Structures are given as structure tokens and as C-alpha cells.
């Protein structure tokens, strides 16, 4: 077989980016929510003095440490991959996305990395207040990171505030317009809420797992309760934000929405296609099962609204993998509905006083543990596969963005990424599951390295001795 029969350097580079970015985002999707959750737990502990909160904080802190490390190392890869594999994109859009990523480093990465050490190892060193501040700064850092990177991503989806120089380079004209580009507010909110939901589902699943064994575990009850409040309140909000995001996409990237919906013909009173198989060769969605006129109602807020279909655009302007966009969208939305139902079921059981001892509900909650991660991944696939064939939408094609690196080099590096990621992050995930399996208990220890690394000659600052306040206010049910 000769090389031209094999995937091109472009395909390999695209696959490599998809592989590394999907792996990467699994970690921050959990980190962002978990950092805020930790800040809330610690705040509640400082406010109420109940050891229950400190034990729960320390339990999740151990998991946070492992997850954060994997997020950092997989993220550094991405910051260099723009250059190794997408050098033309970097050169042409560097004036715009470069400073946004620069701000991400300056405002977020240093903040997270600097105070992570204090957060993990500093509780016995700096006193409660300062330690809480460190936790909050890490949480703010994770959100700041999301802000800037989603600003960069959103600018590439809906570019504004720039001009194009004679050599094709994008020149910034208005930074405010670049950062707060039309899709940014929707995408940012949608992603941040998604990370909170993802975290709530994982926390809830771990808590439910332990409640199935010991329904009296106070810490597991606290975690399940908090997780179910989050799911109840936030999952419906996410549906509304997602709907608004979809309408924004319809305005700026109608091809993407047409692919999401499986619409080929532009029509009034378009159906809402529930299932089917979009066939790009036939230019139709086969075996479509839909609800008449509902598509127009959702997208156009009228039964007769005209909704553009894929045929309204020349084939070279359409997303390159319509079934992928179509089905990823259904996975995301389907899981979203399951999350809403979970939150409602939790409310019902809470009202009946049976939240912590209803086996079917606890098992369902365990099963929903990964749902947030799957939904977030599916959502990113919708938005990224849906904006093809462009990197900078409408202006720079993916095929014109790629580095002048030979296919064998890209293939070799892709293979190396695949092996290393599966081994390293597989092992990391395995360790996280080991931590999940340990029941949260009283006098939770926190990260093992957090056992005092006392240094000679230094008196630790007024500290929080291990479980010192557990005696003062011991949790009732132990």
C-alpha cells in the first residue's frame, strides 16, 4: 500500500487534535466544578464549624489533586499543538487568539498553579482564612481559564472585531468585540454550567455508591444532598441556556444547526427530527422519525417559521460529518433530559424523606455519574464538527490551517499520544476510582503528601490540627 492510500496529514492532524482535546477536556470539565464545590465546602466549614464539611472537603481534595495534575499535563500539550500541527492557523490568527491565550496564562494558569500548592499542602501552614483564600483563588483561576479559552474558541466560531490584512493575517481592531463576540456569552455560560453539572453528577454518584452500602454515612448524605440540589436547579437552567445558544448558532452558523437537526430542505413548518440517519450522499435524512412543525417552533418560535436546510448551502460549505453532529447532539440533549429527571426525582424523594435510602434512585444516580462527562464531550463534538470545514468560521478553512509536517510524522506522534494517554490517564483514572471506592469517613486525611511536610526550624502557623474541631461539634449520626 502506498502512502496516498492512507489518511492525509490533514486528517491525521485533525484526529490528533480531536483525540488530545477530548481527553484534555474531561479533566477540566470535572476540575472547574470541583474547585467551586471545594470552595463551598470549605466556606461552609468555616461558617458552621462542622467537621462534616471539612471531612468532605478533604475527601474531594485528594481526588481534585489527581484530576488537576492530569488536566495540567494534558493542557500543556494543547498549547503547543497549535504550533506543531496548526502553524498556519497560528500565524494567521495568532494576533487574535494568541493574546487571549496569553491572558489565560497570566490570569488563570499561574493563579491556579501558584495556589494549588497552598491548597493541597498548606492547611497546617497558613491558617484557615488564608487557606480558604487559596481554595477560592484556585476556583477563580479555573473559571478564568474557561473564560479566556472559550473567548478564543468563540471568536473562531463567530469572528468579529478584526480585519484581514493583504497577506491573509487577521488583525485585531476592537478587543472588546473580539472577546465578547456574538457566541461567547452563550458558549461560556453553557460550558460553565456543564462543568457544575458534571461535578454534581460525579459527586452524587460517589455518594450514592456509598449510601447503598451504609445509608448512615453523614458525609455521603451531605454530598448526595448537595449534588441533587445542584442537578435540580441547574439542569433546567442548562436546557434554557442551551436553547438560547442554539438560536445564537442558527443566526451565525445556520449550517451547523441544519446538521444538528438533520434538515436538508429549507422549509416552513420544519419537523423536529428525533431519530434518523443523515445521508450526505443522498442529501436526505433516512428513516427520519419526527414531530411535525416542532422544529420550526423551537428554532423559529412559530409553527410556520422558515428553517434553512443543508441544501441551501453549497456542499463545500456544509459540515463534513453530518451524522456525527446529528447524533452527538442527540446524545447531549438526551442526557440533559435524564439529568433534569434525576433532579426532579431527587426533589420528590427528598420531600418524601427517602432521598438517602431508595435503592433504585441511588443506583440510577450511580449510573448517571459519567453522564456529565459524556454530555460535555458530545456537546463539544457538536460545536467543533459542526463548524467544519472552517477553523476561523467562514474565513479560514481547516485544510488551509495545517502545518507543513509530513503525514508519517503526524501519524507517529498520534500513535505516541494514543499509547501514552491511554496508559497514563488510564492509570490516573484507575487511581481516582480507587479513591471513589473509599468511603468518606470522619477525620478524613486529605492528600497523603498533605501530611505535614514540616520543615526544620519553622513553627507552623496557627493551624488546624487534624480533626481538632471534630470533638467540638461532632456529627450527630456517627
Amino acid at each position, binding site marked *: 500500500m502506498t502512502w496516498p492510500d492512507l489518511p492525509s496529514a490533514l486528517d491525521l492532524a485533525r484526529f490528533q487534535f480531536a483525540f488530545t482535546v477530548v481527553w484534555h477536556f474531561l479533566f477540566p470539565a470535572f476540575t472547574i466544578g470541583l474547585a467551586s464545590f471545594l470552595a463551598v465546602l470549605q466556606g461552609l466549614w468555616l461558617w458552621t464549624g462542622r467537621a462534616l464539611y471539612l471531612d468532605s472537603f478533604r475527601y474531594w481534595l485528594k481526588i481534585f489533586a*489527581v484530576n488537576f495534575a*492530569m488536566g*495540567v*499535563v494534558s*493542557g*500543556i500539550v494543547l498549547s*503547543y499543538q*497549535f*504550533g*506543531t500541527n496548526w*502553524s498556519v492557523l*497560528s*500565524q494567521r490568527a*495568532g*494576533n*487574535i487568539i*494568541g*493574546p487571549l*491565550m*496569553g491572558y489565560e*496564562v*497570566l*490570569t488563570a*494558569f*499561574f*493563579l491556579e*498553579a*501558584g495556589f*494549588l*500548592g*497552598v491548597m493541597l*499542602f498548606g492547611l497546617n*501552614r*497558613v491558617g484557615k482564612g488564608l487557606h480558604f483564600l487559596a481554595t477560592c483563588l484556585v476556583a477563580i483561576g479555573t473559571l478564568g481559564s474557561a473564560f479566556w479559552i472559550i473567548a478564543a474558541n468563540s471568536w473562531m466560531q463567530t469572528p468579529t472585531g478584526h480585519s484581514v490584512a493583504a497577506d491573509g*493575517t487577521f*488583525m*485585531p481592531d476592537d*478587543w472588546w468585540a473580539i472577546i465578547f463576540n456574538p457566541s461567547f456569552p452563550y458558549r461560556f455560560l453553557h460550558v460553565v454550567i456543564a462543568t457544575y453539572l458534571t461535578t454534581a453528577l460525579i459527586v452524587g454518584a460517589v455518594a450514592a455508591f456509598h449510601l447503598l452500602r451504609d445509608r448512615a454515612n453523614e458525609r455521603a448524605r451531605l454530598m448526595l444532598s448537595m449534588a441533587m440540589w445542584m442537578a435540580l436547579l441547574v439542569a433546567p437552567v442548562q436546557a434554557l441556556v442551551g436553547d438560547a445558544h442554539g438560536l445564537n448558532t442558527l443566526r451565525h452558523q445556520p449550517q451547523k444547526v441544519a446538521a444538528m437537526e438533520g434538515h436538508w430542505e429549507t422549509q416552513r413548518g420544519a419537523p423536529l427530527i428525533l431519530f434518523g440517519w443523515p445521508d450526505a450522499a443522498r442529501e436526505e435524512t433516512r428513516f427520519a422519525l419526527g414531530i411535525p412543525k416542532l422544529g420550526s417552533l423551537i428554532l423559529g418560535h412559530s409553527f410556520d417559521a422558515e428553517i434553512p436546510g443543508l441544501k441551501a448551502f453549497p456542499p463545500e460549505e456544509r459540515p463534513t460529518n453530518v451524522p456525527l453532529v446529528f447524533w452527538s447532539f442527540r446524545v447531549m440533549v438526551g442526557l440533559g433530559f435524564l439529568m433534569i429527571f434525576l433532579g426532579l426525582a431527587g426533589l420528590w424523594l427528598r420531600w418524601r424523606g427517602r432521598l438517602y435510602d431508595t435503592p433504585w434512585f441511588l443506583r440510577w444516580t450511580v449510573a448517571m455519574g459519567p453522564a456529565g462527562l459524556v454530555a460535555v464531550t458530545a456537546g463539544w463534538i457538536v460545536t467543533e464538527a459542526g463548524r467544519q470545514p472552517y477553523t476561523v468560521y467562514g474565513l479560514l478553512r481547516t485544510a488551509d490551517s495545517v*502545518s*507543513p509536517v*509530513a503525514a508519517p*510524522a503526524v501519524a*507517529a506522534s498520534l500513535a*505516541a499520544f494514543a499509547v*501514552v*494517554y491511554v496508559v*497514563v*490517564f488510564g*492509570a*490516573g483514572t484507575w*487511581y481516582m476510582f480507587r479513591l471513589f471506592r473509599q468511603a468518606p469517613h470522619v477525620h478524613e486525611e486529605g492528600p*497523603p*503528601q498533605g*501530611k*505535614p*511536610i*514540616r*520543615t*526544620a*526550624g519553622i513553627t507552623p502557623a496557627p493551624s488546624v490540627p487534624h480533626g481538632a474541631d471534630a470533638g467540638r461539634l461532632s456529627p450527630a449520626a456517627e
Partner: protein
Amino acid sequence: MMAGISLDLTLIWALIIATAVFLYVVMDGFDLGLGILFPVVRGKPERDVMVNSVAPVWDGNETWLVMGGGGLLAVFPTAYGIILPALYMPVILMLLALVFRGVSFEMRFRAETPRGQLWWDRAFSWGSYVAGFLQGVMLGALVQGIRVADGAYAGGWWDWLTPFSVFTGVAVVIGYGLLGACWLVWRTERALQAEARRFARGLGLATLACIVAVSAAMPFLQPSFRDRWFTLPNLLLAAPVPILVALLGWALFRALGAADRRANAEAGGTGEGTERRGRLAHDGMPFLCALGLFGLSYAGLGVSMWPLIVPPDITIWQAAAAPSSQLFLLVGAAVLIPVILAYTGYVYWLFRGKVRADQGYH
């Protein structure tokens, strides 16, 4: 008017990014140096102390690498788009090595069996060797020059591999080993510190030899490098650099001797005064000298390359981003970099002093 502004901006940015890369080199240099010393420090308690001495700060140290890369993309997108494809294999392999090294910090404490621990220790050590070596290779490949046509990389995917780049790779591993050993002299005590002093002597000599060898090779790589160093009046400005290197080498060995004497005095005494010994001005002295050697070597490279960012042809001004991009990020950098340095300093101060072997692990 506009040209004047962009000229100044570009110069400032070149200095900022050069500083960020230097901070990365020395800060992650001693982290990686610890991994490089792992094969010769075999005891688990000693290895735990080594890792603990950097556990609270390594992540911040590595962030300077992201700053270097992100800054290059933001301010010198042309250089970023040429250098990274040119160094494709070493960059990717280095990132993968850093993946192993980074997660090993967490995993080696999580491993439940001695076997598992051994493997994560290996991942930490091999990751450090590969990352350090490839960073040196990239440096060598960059100063040797990169083939460019029409503003894009025009070479193959093995151009980076030359005898010179392999040599600079080895040199950086040795230099990182020196930084790691000197860090341990500063931050540890007793048997481990005694070992570290021994390593620091050997690695110090080897580092000085590498500096001499690379300096001797540099003028032959690019004609512009030769002109820079061997024409008047540059010669007069350049002459103090080798003298300073020799002085710092001497100071390094003197400081190691002083650390020997303090350790011997302590072994005969009560162990009082450990806190004072942990100070930068005492046991930290060899580390400062090692930093100085790195600083001088780095400055020497900078003088050779100036004003090129992609030798042999592309200058910082040719590679620079739009003035508006440079200005936009500079506003943030001017405010935030001092803040970052301040809280980084605070975290180092918080975790100051000797790290003890007999505490913390059960």
C-alpha cells in the same frame, strides 16, 4: 509614529518572553534535575524528600513553559508557526515526557505496591531525562538555524537531529542535574545533602566543561555569531563573560566547601542552627551560583542570537504580531507578571527551610 511604537513594544516583548523561558529553564530545571538524580538516589525516604521539596511549587514552575509558548504565539506568531513544526518530534516527545513526569508527582504516592511505586519512580525519572534532553536538543537545533521558505518551515521532520543538538541535549541534562543537586544542598540535610554535595561537584565540573564546549562551537554555527563575538568593540564587551563564568564556577566550589564544613560542624554538635543553614545565603549559595551559570550561558546565547528569533534570517521585528496585539497583552503582562512573581515568591517562602526525611510518611 506607529513603527516607533511597535519597535519598542517588540523589544520589550522579546525581553519578557526571554525572561519567561529563562524562568522556566531554571525553575523546572531543578524539578527535572531531581528526576535526573533519581537513578543515583535509591532509597524511598530520600526520594520522597526530593519530590516533597518541590511538590508545592512544581506546577507553578511548569506554567512558565506555557507562558513561553503562549507568549510566543501571541507576540511572535510567525516564529511560533515556524519553530514548532521544525521541532515537531522533539516538542511532542518532550510534552509526552512532561506528561509522565507531571502525573508521577501524584501517582507515586498513590501506588499501593512497591512495584507500582517503582514504575512511577521510573516514569518520573525517565520523563525528566527525556524532557531535559529534548529541551537541550531544541535549543541546539534552533541556534543551528531553521530552513524557512515563504514564511513557513521548509525542512524535513528529522532536521533537528544533529551531533551539535545531541550534545546540547546532553549538556542541558547535566546542567539540570547540577541545579537539582544544588537545590538539594539547600533544601535537605544529613545523608541526602552529603550525597547532593558530592553530585554537585561532579556535575559542576561537567557543566563548566559543557559551557566551554558549546561556547567554542557557537562561532562556527552562524557567521553572525562569529562577528558578534570576535569583532571590536563587541570583543571588549564580550570578554567579561568567560571571566564571570570562571568566577562563578570558583564560587560554586567554594560554597560547596562551606556547606561541607557546616554539615561536619553540625554532625559534631547538637543540630542547632538548622534553620539558619537553610537560608539562601548559607546552604542556598551553591544553588545561586548554579543559577548564575545558567544566567550567564543564557545571556551569552542571547547576545549571539540577537536580534534573530529564528536563525539564520528572521528577526524579532519580522516575526512580531500586530502592534495592537502586543499592546493589548502588554497591558495585562505589566500588571500581572509582578503580581505573579509576588505570589510565587510568597509560596516559595511559605514552604521554605529544610525538608525533613523523618516526617510526614508512614
